[in-house]
């Protein structure tokens, strides 16, 4: 894309995700781009965001970018540290999270996620880390944002090899009571896939300037539908880029060129 000259894909993804956090208050962040997106949102559209990490940290104010979700810099000067029974039981299952950030090896059109295995679980081609807390985030957060830096057929699949974290669609079908909407946004190098409610498919609602819709469809394992109101996503403003480059990730720890 011609815009490449002005900002990187990582910056584009981070700014797009940050803008989607407008009006949100309690956000469960992962390490890397989600953390950057939350920081950017806090300093722009959403000063009330309380950022929460799976390790138990609430209201983190790190002096440096965290290397893990349990980094010592997240604890120092934070507003609260909860044990895991409280974090998972009261905060996550207690339905206190507005938006949870997740990644995955595979995602399907309803936002079911696989982070356990490639191939058969009993004899996997590749053993992945597993659920961690992803299963509980998707099941309990009001909505879940997924960031996938590489939008390809290998990760956007018709059927996950294994469903580690189930969409509320599947959970409710099995008898769950759920107030979660599941995956409502997927941010990729091409643009944004979105759905508003349980039962809907993830469809292409926005593309970054210069992206070819045909390429997005070709790189998606399922028959990706395109929104009739497909928008060209606004590019990052100079102010947003300066915050990211000078304040939030000055050393380019996560924002690769």
């Amino acid at each position, binding site marked *: 894309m011609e815009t490449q000259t002005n900002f990187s894909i990582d910056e584009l993804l981070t700014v797009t995700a940050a803008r989607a956090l407008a009006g949100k208050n309690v956000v469960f962040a992962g390490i890397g781009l989600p953390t950057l997106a939350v920081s950017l949102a806090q300093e722009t559209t959403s000063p009330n965001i309380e950022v929460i990490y799976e390790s138990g940290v609430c209201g983190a*104010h790190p002096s440096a970018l965290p290397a893990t979700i349990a980094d010592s810099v997240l*604890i120092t*000067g934070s507003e*609260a540290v909860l044990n895991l029974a*409280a974090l998972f039981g009261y*905060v996550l*299952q207690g339905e206190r999270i507005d938006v949870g950030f997740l990644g995955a090896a595979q995602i399907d059109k309803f936002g079911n996620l696989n982070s356990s295995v490639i191939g058969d679980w009993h004899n996997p081609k590749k053993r992945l880390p597993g659920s961690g807390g992803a299963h509980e985030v998707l099941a309990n957060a009001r909505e879940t944002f997924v960031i996938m830096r590489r939008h390809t057929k290998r990760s956007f699949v018709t059927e996950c090899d294994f469903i580690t974290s189930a969409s509320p669609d599947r959970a409710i079908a099995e008898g769950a009571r759920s107030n979660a909407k599941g995956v409502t946004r997927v941010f990729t190098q091409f643009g944004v896939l979105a759905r508003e409610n349980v039962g809907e498919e993830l469809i292409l609602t926005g593309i970054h300037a210069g992206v070819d819709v045909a390429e997005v469809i070709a790189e998606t394992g399922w028959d990706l539908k395109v929104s009739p109101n497909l928008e060209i996503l606004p590019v990052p403003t100079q102010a947003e880029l300066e915050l990211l480059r000078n*304040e939030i990730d000055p050393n380019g720890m996560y924002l690769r060129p």
Partner: protein
Amino acid sequence: MSNQSESNRTSKVMSMSDAIAKYVFSGATVAIEGFTHAIPTAAGHEIIRQGFKDLTLVRQTADIVVDQMLAGGCISTLVSSFVGNSSAGSLGEIRRRIEDSDPVKLNFVEYSHYGMVCRYLAGAQKLPFYPLKSFFGSDLPKINPEIRKVTSPYPNSDGGFDEIYVVPAINPDVTIVHAQRADQWGNIQMWGLTGLQAEAVFAAKNAIVTVEEIVSDEVVRSDPNRTIIPAHAVSAVVEVPFGAHPSFTQGYYDRDNAFYREWTGISGEKESIQNWLKTWVYGTKNHAEYVALMSEETKQRLEVGEAMSLPINYGSRL
């Protein structure tokens, strides 16, 4: 790297009258917690002043503040596991309501202490029920049909499947607790007896936390493990010194044991309890006026000594 712009962040600090008016309503289920320590009495008095009726009051240890709210005509149902004036005598109004239906029978839902803890645990975790090993052989399930059983899906050592009692979740419309301090965002710090305050707050749709003092962000963030309730679970923070009197707040003032003993007499007659309310609750606009009525002798008697914690290091990499 994070400079969350505090300037635009919304403070949760409110006045007691505004907080009670906003989150309490007649007919509401209200939890008022604090296990002997840090009982939010001042908030109970404001509920009496504002004249809310027909409350379902949930309180593990129903003591003086409950007797006062009953005398104030606020409560129609009480959910509790202890109705006593701990080691100091008795609660006249509760006994009249239960023993003599005077003026009207109190709907009393009785549990054990852990039964109450588990109701909040289920509520905080949005579970339909919580299992516990209590109640077998007791008469409590006979008089409380909410106490039920489920069967474990795992075989016991004999290969059979045991039954276990469960209690239902409680999700109060509002939970009110008291603590030593908070920041303006609603991060609540408490020490000494922390009881079941965190669970009661997480179980609630809204939570009012009264504190002895609102402190700066620096104080709270110097010790994040001291925060027992994070900001996102709190609806309103109210600064109310002496807000737990006649109970105590560790490190701030001691329990007014003399008043607990006096209460047996005060609550012994309907007239004397109403007179007490006239002077101390209806006769005061707010808790500052209540505190102003307390004698200097009383305040001196409740003073506490100094026993400071030793600092620990939260330092991270350089």
